[in-house]
């Protein structure tokens, strides 16, 4: 890289500065709100982790979509679409339901239950429902391991993007980016994250529209681009892609489970379904969420696929989007458009970081190590912010010089979280018979069979391994729950009674 491209770097730096301002503003709101409500540790936790359940509809939708859409949808996915053409856009559109599905399925029932039980996170929900130390510890460990790996991978993606487009070297780019995310999360808590996500959701939408429009006009319209893609390789415009046997029907269809219906089981996503103010917010949130997620998914992936006729021979998939942006726009505008993919990463990492902090402080520390913290606002605040900074430091250290293990863990991150959380959440919410032994059996079967398939049968029956492992996990959960003691009357009453 020959020197820094200041014209592109400065808009990005200004954007990052705005994140700090929002973080500080949110910190003051959180502190004031928890002091107003009596100033003890548990109100602070509720304020820090769910923003006092005050999100409106637009904010709810933006934070949900921005949390869910990550480097995968803004950098990796479009990069793959560049190689495989419309087939990969077709695969990505298995995410059509994402915007409405989670909020409809968890719905108001999840919000009502979380208010009855005072749950601030998915782990709180599981603790109240199953009343089992083992379930909670597996859940917390799964969150800590899988999410730290997932966050490092996101940071690597963002650092490469910054490196490729501004000329910063990899490590400075990583630190520049990571410090911004970690600090604004640590000081701002859920409120700061939600404010930021909302801003970032808007930036991501505008950036998607700008890039898509630029690609279309440079390529001479849809019809012309599609014909040029066909001339490159007819496979580019079929649902089977350019590589024989890679995008087979069962495998591609499996993505409806992996990134479509099972997304309900991702903790950072489910946490958002606890945080809204009232049913009106949920209703408008579902509509905004559906529109925004579809526009971004279709826009970014099509931009990647159409990019194949504008720029040729891009070596690495991750460089497709930054190369397109720097080729198509004036350097200053490129800085603004690049804020979109960076925002996608930032809004995902900040939410994941908060979930990890909740797992460490709320689930493990306060419950098992020092229950006295619940009444001590100042100590709890120090520990929470400290944990956030420490986890951030670990994540950056892993991304600095990524070890083999990290790459390996990240492959399993989403699927691992789904195997752990999907059935205990859904069955706990909708089935009175769900109990702790069932949940444990389901988690063990889910994670175990997923690892087994991944190593020994990469495409069981032609499917992605997540599909059979979720089926087996469900079967194990139901069979064991039927054979063991029903959950106590008190739990049923707490969840289903008035």
């Amino acid at each position, binding site marked *: 890289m020959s020197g820094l491209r200041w014209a592109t770097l400065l808009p990005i730096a200004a954007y990052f500065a705005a994140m700090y301002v929002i973080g500080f503003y949110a910190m003051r709101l959180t502190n004031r709100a928890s002091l107003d409500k009596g100033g003890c540790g548990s109100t602070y936790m509720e304020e820090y982790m769910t923003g006092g359940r005050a999100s409106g509809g637009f904010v709810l939708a933006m934070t949900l979509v921005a949390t869910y859409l990550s480097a995968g949808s803004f950098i990796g996915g479009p990069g793959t679409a560049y190689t495989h053409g419309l087939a990969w856009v077709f695969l990505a*559109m298995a995410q059509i*339901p994402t915007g409405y599905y989670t909020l*409809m399925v968890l719905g108001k029932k999840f919000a009502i239950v979380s208010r009855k039980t005072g749950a601030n996170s998915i782990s709180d929900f599981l603790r109240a429902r199953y009343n089992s130390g083992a379930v909670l510890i597996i859940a917390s460990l799964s969150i800590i391991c899988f999410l730290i790996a997932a966050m490092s991978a996101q940071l690597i993606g963002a650092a490469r993007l910054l490196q490729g487009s501004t000329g910063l070297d990899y490590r400075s780019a990583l630190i520049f980016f990571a410090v911004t995310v970690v600090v604004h999360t640590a000081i701002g808590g859920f409120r700061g994250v939600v404010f930021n996500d909302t801003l970032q959701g808007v930036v991501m939408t505008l950036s998607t529209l700008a890039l898509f429009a630029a690609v279309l006009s440079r390529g001479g*319209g*849809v019809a012309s681009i599609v014909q040029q893609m066909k001339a490159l390789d*007819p*496979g580019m415009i079929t649902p089977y892609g350019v590589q024989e046997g890679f995008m087979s029907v069962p495998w591609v269809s499996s993505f409806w489970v992996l990134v479509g219906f099972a997304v309900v089981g991702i903790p950072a996503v489910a946490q958002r379904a606890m945080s809204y103010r*009232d049913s*009106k917010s949920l*209703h408008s949130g579902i509509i905004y969420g559906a529109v925004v997620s579809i526009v971004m998914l279709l826009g970014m992936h099509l931009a990647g696929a159409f990019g194949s006729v504008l720029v040729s021979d891009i070596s690495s998939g991750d460089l497709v989007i930054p190369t397109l942006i720097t080729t198509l726009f004036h350097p200053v505008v490129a800085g603004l458009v690049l804020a979109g993919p960076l925002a996608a990463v930032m809004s995902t990492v900040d939410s994941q970081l908060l979930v990890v902090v909740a797992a460490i402080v709320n689930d493990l520390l306060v419950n098992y190590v020092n229950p006295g913290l619940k009444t001590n606002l100042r100590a709890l605040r120090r520990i929470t912010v400290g944990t956030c900074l420490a986890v951030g430091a670990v994540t950056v250290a892993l991304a600095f010089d990524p070890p083999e293990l990290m790459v390996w863990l990240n492959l399993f991150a989403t699927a691992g979280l789904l195997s752990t959380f999907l059935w205990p959440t859904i069955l706990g919410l909708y089935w009175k018979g769900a109990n702790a032994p069932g949940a444990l059996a389901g988690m063990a079967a889910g994670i175990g069979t997923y690892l087994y398939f991944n190593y020994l049968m990469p495409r069981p029956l032609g499917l992605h391994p997540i599909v059979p492992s979720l089926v087996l996990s469900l079967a194990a959960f139901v069979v064991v729950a039927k054979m063991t003691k029903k959950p106590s009357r008190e739990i049923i009453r707490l969840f289903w009674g008035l």
Partner: protein
Amino acid sequence: MKENEFGFVEDPRYRECEREALYGILLGVINLAVWAIGGYWLGGGSAEDYSYIMGFPTWFFVSCVANSALAIVGTIYIVKRRMRDMPLGPMTEEEAAEYVLAGRRRS
């Protein structure tokens, strides 16, 4: 209000919640069906024989573009016509009875 087999009055809001969740699943399944039929039935032949809508191959237009529009329209329909506003906090028995009555008046 009627008690269930465990001897307590169930939260009356859950019936609506569960129905709304089913609508979400139903719309998801419809989107999946349109996606699969559009993609693999219309897009099954050779690229030479494709027809086009607005420049996109027909299979892609149906399974991705039109399907997205369907998801948005379906979501708006469900939210505006099939979902009910309700309080989310804990309820007393009187409030629950009042809520059930309000539901009967609505329908």
